[in-house]
Structures are given as C-alpha cells and as structure tokens.
C-alpha cells in the first residue's frame, strides 16, 4: 500500500468520490467507564444526540 494522501491537501482529491478523513489517535478517555457508557473510548468520535438545535 502506498502512502495515504495527506488530508490537508483536500483540494487535490479527485472529484466524483467520497473521502472520510483519517482518524489520528491521540489518547483514550482517561475515564474508560465514561467512554463505555458513551459508546466510544475516543474523545474525538464522541458525538452524542442532543435532540435540540443550538446546543
């Protein structure tokens, strides 16, 4: 496999295709119980449903 394209050159990505940026691993939640209840141990992926706009 060759090097992944760098996500900061998004302009260079060919059109007519979809791209999800690579996750870069920084750390796990310090409180793993919190991550377990949230459904992810990666803080950057923790995107809960609020059911309200402008929260």
């Amino acid at each position, binding site marked *: 496999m060759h090097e992944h394209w760098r996500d900061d050159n998004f302009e260079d990505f060919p059109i007519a295709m*979809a791209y999800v940026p690579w996750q870069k691993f920084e750390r796990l939640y310090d409180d793993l119980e919190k991550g377990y209840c949230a459904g992810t141990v990666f803080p950057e992926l923790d995107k809960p449903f609020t059911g309200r706009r402008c929260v």
Partner: protein
Amino acid sequence: MWSYEKRLQFPVNIKEPNAKLAQAIISQYGGPDGEMGASMRYLSQRYSIPYREVAGVLTDIGTEELAHLEMVASIVHQLTRNLSMEEIEKSGFANYYVDHTVGVWPQAAGGVPFNACEFQVKGDPITDLMEDMAAEQKARATYDNILRLVKDPDVCEPIKFLRMREVVHFQRFGEALRMVQDRLDSRNFYAFNPAFDKCESCDDKPDCGCDK
C-alpha cells in the same frame, strides 16, 4: 468461526415492561436498518473483497453487529416479559402477541418481516463500502428516532451506546474506503472492478502480483 461469550457487549437491565416501546425498538432487530441486516450485510460482503485488511474491517464490524443484535433482542425481551393480558391489549401489542406470544421475531416496527432485500452485496468494493457507510447513517438516524420516544433511563443507556457505535463504524468504513482508493488509480477510480476484472499481465502470468 465464532466463539460465544455469555455476556452482553453493554448491560441491559430494564425493570419496567413497555410493550409499546418494544414494538418500535424491534425495528432495530429485524427492520430495514436493523442489526440483523447490518451483520448479514458486512459478513456477506467480505468474500469478494480482494484486500485482506478491508475484509478484516467487514469481519470485525459484522461480528460486533451480532453482539448488537443480541442487545436489541435483550431490550425487546425485557420490555415484554411479565406483561399482563390487559397491558397487551391496551398497548396495541395484541397483533404481535397473537403470532409470537412474547418471543422475539425479526420484523420492522410496522410488522414487515425481515428480508434479505434490506441489504445488498454488489461484489464491487467501492459500491459495497458506500452502502455500508449509508447503512450506518440510517441506523444512527433510527436510534435518534428511538431516543425521542424513550423516557426510561434503563432503555436510554443501551440505545445511546448502540447509536454511538454507528458513528464509530461509519468512520471505520470511511477509512476502509480510503484503503481501497489507495490501491486504485485516482485518475479513474471506476476503470474496473478490483473484485472481478483482471489486469493485462494476468493474461500471460496468472500470478502477476496485482490484486486480482
């Protein structure tokens, strides 16, 4: 091959039965965007993928979906156990009850039985991964809809957990798609199907080193 663990991926301990809610949540068991469709979709799509790492993503997420299937069934089971006849009649559960008593059967909230048409296996890696990303979003939106109906924290907690897994899986399928793109020619991703079409040098040498 699989190995069974006698525990849920996330605990389900519901004290109050609620047949009405069970009828909505059962959609995530056997409905159009439910966990049965999810697990069968990924585990069926694996075979034609020519890249081991990508087939690995499908295997591991498909396996986790089986654990989600068991969680959703546990929620439905606990919401419908110890129901009185009066509650069954009052909550509109009689139609389900007459065919299944309080057993767990894969159907959508509207009563439509589970059907393999809920998912696709196209045999084309880009197409299949795009479907998988869409499937995760549809399941996430279904859990959003369920969360608006749920007041009981015993039900809310496992549903919130399952919803977040859809977001994580979307990210992983997106990365798996990037792995496929990295192996194709970015000038034309659609020039051929890497799960089917051969390269030119394959004609002379079957083991030419290309992925097909």
